[in-house]
């Protein structure tokens, strides 16, 4: 430092830009994404604290009464509860059902997407990086998996493991991992020809380090696109499995199962049974994706100056 200069009366002390702060402030750049994050946080909190905030335990058959079935929004049921969003055919309070259903849907959607992503991306990277027989074997496995109908897979798992949320997650992972693998491999195949990978190889870095520290970050953008969409797809697929009677147990409905149940009542004007869970599902997925979009833009090293 100079000896003569007076301490500079800087106009504003420059903020210390830790990477995290930078990340946060860049994320908050988009008001929409920020709003989505707030909404998603609320949803997640509602899901976590479901037992404390919902008017009814929708999983307890003992408190349900079919005589309260299909009440319109705002009706008061036999138990004295006001059903602000109406009830379903079993007399289940829709609001409670939705709050609990969010829980199941988030566990199923996010859980299966994350696990499938970890498995799929690793295998995809390995396939692209190793090439040769490894690539062939993994990709044929992908072919096998992609052509295997989710429904049959779910049915087999049902037969082997029985019903349950965890088993639905397993079924979805089995169905979904191949998407990640295929997507990552496509990008990684191009990336691995790049010079920086050669450089890393010359340095004799261990394979896993090259894969995950060098190759993966550069395959990230398409992966995040597919990933955030797959959360939505997993939730929707769970709904479809439930629609086909292969999803979560009927007494512990997810949003998808609520929609599937109410679907049959759409024609007769009892819209609320599937409409409100549908709206809840929509808001959840839209917020996840808006957050995901912004994350992708912020995290993408190549979009930075």
């Amino acid at each position, binding site marked *: 430092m100079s000896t003569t200069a007076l301490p500079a009366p800087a106009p504003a002390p420059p903020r210390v830009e830790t990477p995290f702060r930078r990340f946060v402030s860049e994320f908050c750049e988009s008001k929409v994404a920020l709003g989505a994050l707030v909404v998603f946080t609320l949803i997640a909190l509602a899901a976590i604290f479901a037992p404390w905030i919902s008017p009814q335990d929708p999983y307890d058959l003992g408190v349900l*009464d079919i005589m309260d*079935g299909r009440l319109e929004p705002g009706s008061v049921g036999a138990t004295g509860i006001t059903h602000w969003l109406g009830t379903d055919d079993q007399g289940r309070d829709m609001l409670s059902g939705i709050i609990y259903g969010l829980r199941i849907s988030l566990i199923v959607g996010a859980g299966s997407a994350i696990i499938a992503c970890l498995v799929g991306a690793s295998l995809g990277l390995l396939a692209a990086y190793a090439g040769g027989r490894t690539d062939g074997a993994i990709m044929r496995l992908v072919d096998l998996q992609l052509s295997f109908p989710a429904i049959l897979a779910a049915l087999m798992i*049902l*037969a082997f493991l029985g019903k349950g949320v965890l088993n639905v997650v397993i079924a979805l992972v089995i169905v979904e991992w191949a998407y990640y693998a295929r997507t990552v491999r496509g990008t990684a195949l191009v990336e691995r020809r790049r010079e920086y990978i050669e450089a890393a190889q010359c340095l004799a870095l261990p394979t896993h380090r090259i894969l995950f520290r060098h190759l993966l970050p550069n395959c990230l953008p398409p992966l995040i696109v597919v990933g955030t969409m797959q959360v939505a797809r997993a939730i929707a697929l769970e709904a479809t499995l439930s629609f*086909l*009677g292969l999803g979560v147990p009927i007494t512990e409905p997810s949003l998808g199962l609520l929609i599937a149940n109410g679907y*049959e009542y*759409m*024609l007769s004007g009892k819209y609320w049974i599937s409409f409100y869970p549908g709206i809840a599902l929509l808001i959840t997925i839209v917020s996840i994706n808006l957050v995901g979009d912004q994350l992708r833009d912020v995290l993408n090293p190549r979009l930075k100056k």
Partner: protein
Amino acid sequence: MMMKPIMAVAACFGLLCAEARAQNLTMAVGAPVTSLDPHYHQLSPNNAASDMIFDRLVDTDSRSRNIPGLALSWTTVEPNVWEFKLRPNVRFHNGNPFVAEDVAFTIARLPNVPNSPSSYAIYARPITAVEVVDPLTVRFRTTEPYPLLPLDMTNVRILNRATHERSTTDDFNAGRAAIGTGPYRVVSHRMGDRIELERNDTYWGERPAFGRVNYRMITNDASRTAALLAGDVDVIDQVPTSDLARLRTDQRVTLSEIVGLRLIFLGLDFARPAGENSPFVTDNNGQPLGRNPLQDVRVRRALSMAIDRRAIVERVMEGAAVPASQFLPEGTYSHVPDMPPTAYDADGARRLLAEAGYPQGFRITLAGPNDRYINDARIIQAVGQMWTRIGVRTTVEAQPWTTFVARAGRADFSAFLIGWGSNPDGSHPLRNILATVNRDRGWGASNRGRYSNARVDELTLQSLSELNDARREQILIQAQRLAADDVGVIPLHIQTNIWATRRGLTIAARADELTRAQDVRPAAAR
């Protein structure tokens, strides 16, 4: 000046369209027809399709009572010989005359249809010989007196020896061999999608109202209703109960309903003796009980009393069912009179449970299919609610029929929901559901709870050789009453079969669930 001819043409065209529309009928059924071979696969949709193309010796009316078909009359000439007088002047679609020889050919074909996943052989098995007395008289010889033979004949569609001697199932499916004596002939068949039919103008019976029929399969319930509302189809069957509220008030639609022959009931675990654990019954802490409470008739009665059947019928079934105490609906042969459905009595149920030594109740899992019967998964949840309220904490497990039926067949469950579509004769459910499992007699094939009562078996056996209808009915009623007192199964309700047509049409609703084009007529012509 140019306008006039154009308008005239347009008017003509409009008339033609109206005429064509009046002549054409589009029907949508919920269950796919899998074959046009009338002896390939015992399946209601196939029987419905066959009924439009072929005829049976003994026909059934809409309430499943036997009426003359290709046979004008039938009687036992000896205790073990049935004689059928055949209808004269009946011709097959290809012009061949129908004669007794064709009956003999048909009976001979039943056990010999290659690859059949469920054949009609059981209807041929009691018959030891078919004797052609003359072209219009045929005799069936059986080893023992066999009162059910006319009933069996309602399941057998008659083929023509000359036409079908070498026909394979493929020939029928392709339409080449789908030649019968029935009201319609096949124009084309696209498997699993549609059958196009055209009126048989030489039909012996009542002339069908529509010249051409497009028989479509739309398996998704909501889509089927939507297709009707959109005007794309004229008739739908298996109207989902969830749409009833709307359709009942819709001016464009007419509903036709009839109480059917299908009972929805709960089966209970009789497979484990009283001193063993039933797989899905535990005490309130989830520990094994050490005994099977379902072997105690008081527990079974309590479980039945806990169920509010009226609530299920009204709330879950939207009125499309009647509460039941037995397999056959009122007005059917061998229906047990003076046996009303068990009344809902939660307090009484709790008392009975306490008497049986379960004042705190126990835990049970109620299983059921979710894609087989109308609202099956909803019903088990409703029953779960009701049982839980008397202290039997119930977990509900719904699964697809494919996995359910395999486990139910192995007697894997403690309690399960299932249905049974009866022939209109008490011996049918008795032999299949309530009789002790016995391979040699072919009994208890669907007795998935393994209920067994020697007296019921004895009466059932007795009924099978009793040729006097009135005496036989009394025996059957006695057997059914015994099984009901014993709570061998817990009957819930008998389904109502519902069709919806566009306004201006009517369909004769059938208890046997079959959807047939000849039953549809313009409303005015009724």
